[in-house]
């Protein structure tokens, strides 16, 4: 899952970046509204964590631009502006959720998970697919009742593919979702993680569509 963090406060930005990364998200961090606008025009994200009081362009203007481009990326506003009018305005202008600073990091992470879950069209927190039970909160994966431990990158790929069963994702797309700008990507990294996943979950779980990419089938083939 790739997130965009829009935050001008260096201390807050650094801390959130570290916490999100340690939770397995690929995060890009921009520090002003103009760069946020530029970035959102060229790169797609699974979620945007948006501060409102930004230099050069206000967070609400960034949000307005995003929605006017028909971009449906979930937006979570995280700001110190806690007045009712601000919260209402933020949500009415197209944000999916609003959290005020200072917040608890657990709550921030839970809201991020909820927004991503909703964006992938699910409501149930724990779900089962092709005999594999998946809990996104604890990241517990059970195959035939047996717990399987995944590397964080493996988990990230599985999460991506499970979000849209039946949809094929190319290696490039997966890399995009897995790595932020700063990460070094080795050429065959995705293949390595796919290989690991098939070994742990069974080869039926992830299908290789030759020349196109990978997918989790909708039903057992």
């Amino acid at each position: 899952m790739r997130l965009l963090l829009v935050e001008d406060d260096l201390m807050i930005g650094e801390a959130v970046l570290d916490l999100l990364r340690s939770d397995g998200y690929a995060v890009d961090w921009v520090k002003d509204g103009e760069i946020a606008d530029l970035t959102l025009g060229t790169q797609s994200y699974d979620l945007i964590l948006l501060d409102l009081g930004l230099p050069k362009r206000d967070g609400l203007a960034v949000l307005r631009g995003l929605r006017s481009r028909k971009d449906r990326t979930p937006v979570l506003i995280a700001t110190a502006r806690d007045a009712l009018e601000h919260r209402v305005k933020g949500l009415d202008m197209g944000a999916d959720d609003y959290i005020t600073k200072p917040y608890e990091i657990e709550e921030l992470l839970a809201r991020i998970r909820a927004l991503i879950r909703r964006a992938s069209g699910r409501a149930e927190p724990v779900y089962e697919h092709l005999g594999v039970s998946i809990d996104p909160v604890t990241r517990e994966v059970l195959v035939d009742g047996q717990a399987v431990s995944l590397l964080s990158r493996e988990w990230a790929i599985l999460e991506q593919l499970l979000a849209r069963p039946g949809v094929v994702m190319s290696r490039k797309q997966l890399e995009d979702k897995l790595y932020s700008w700063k990460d070094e990507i080795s050429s065959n990294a995705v293949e390595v993680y796919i290989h690991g996943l098939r070994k742990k979950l069974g080869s039926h779980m992830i299908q290789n569509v030759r020349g196109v990419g990978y997918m989790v089938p909708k039903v057992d083939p």
Partner: protein
Amino acid sequence: MRAVTHSLRARLLLLLFGSVVLTASIQAFIAYRTSLDETNEIFDYQMEQMALSLRPGLPVGGYPSNGFRDDKDESFEFIVQVSTTDGQKIFQSAPSTELPRDAKPGLTAFDARGTTYKLFSLVAGTQLIQVAQDRAARRGMARKLALRTVSPIFVMVPLLIFLVWWVVNVSLAPAERVRRQVASRRADELNEVSEDGLPDEIVPLVHELNLLFHRVRSAFDAQKNFIADAAHELRSPLAALKLQVDGLRRAADDSAREVAVLRLASGIDRATRLVEQLLMLARQQAGPADLEFKEHVHLASMVRAIVGDVWEAANARRIDIGLIEGEDGVVLGHPDALNILVRNLLDNAIKYTPSGGTVNVSVKRSGEHFQFTAEDSGPGVPPDDRGRIFDRFYRVSGQQSGIGGSGLGLAIVKTIAEMHAATLTVGQSETLGGFKVTLVFPRIEENSSMGFSVE
């Protein structure tokens, strides 16, 4: 009682009622007395006319007393007696009451049967004609008549009082309306009271009241904005602290923990700095504003000392800071506050000047004034932002986000400058190209200085 005498309406009513009652009483008294006097005169005239009507005389022995006696004759108001000048009685209307024949002609009085009679005697030829009237009876009748004259006044008084009450109420209705409007307000309802339809006497008062409302509202709004700003600004460092604590908790190894601790420490420093600056601002704003209690401050020596203090911080960033002119002169002020002011300006200059830059400070006389200038080779402030940089929590747009200011330093500078009646101007430095701030103080003559310098 206090409330009564302080109510214009009550006072008006009280005074007007008093005036009405007083004038009515005086009028009644005068009317009564006049009426009494007039009645007296009429009775006297009556007695005189009665006597005169008998002037032709009665035949001597023509009207002997017929012996008729009536008990009621005692109460006859008028007594008529005719006698000859040599003492022979010719006629007597009340046989039991003898009128004194030795009375002088004209109006006199005599006592008989326990009461006083008014007597009119007239000598006509050989006959003495006398008419007497009981004074008590006469007074009673006079009183009755006088009261009848006075009685309309007693009817008019309540009517007048009612009219006065009505007029006062109607006239004070606009004031009452304003009172109700103001009384029904909530504490934060500070909009203006309508001045329409108010009498000329109240309009200036209501106008001043509205001006006051306006001032209070501005102060109130400023306070509200300050609280909103402060809440917002306090939240960011708190949010950072919270996240940093989480980071520390999640740190997997020693090196990560060390980074987290360092970050937490700098987060605490930042929060501390902000709180200190907020307190400083609050303290300066609450400080005494009048010049009477201020001391004589030698500005040049103070600035020299502060430049020495900040030199190390400047040097660490390879910034060349120096005093290019240090003319001696005295200004009136609070040394501590002026210290904070100069310190804040120099800290700012050092903070926003890129390393390798220059900061020039000067203190010099200029006519009647004394001028402090600090200029730097930093990026300066765009003209559009210059008016707002002294606002609390205002940060110049596009400013590098790496510089952690509280946004309060210049607000504190402005507060202190205002306290000292100093003019604060900002612009672009001609010599260094960066930000330039100038403070112009009213200068006072040094030889008049009885205070002490701060060195």
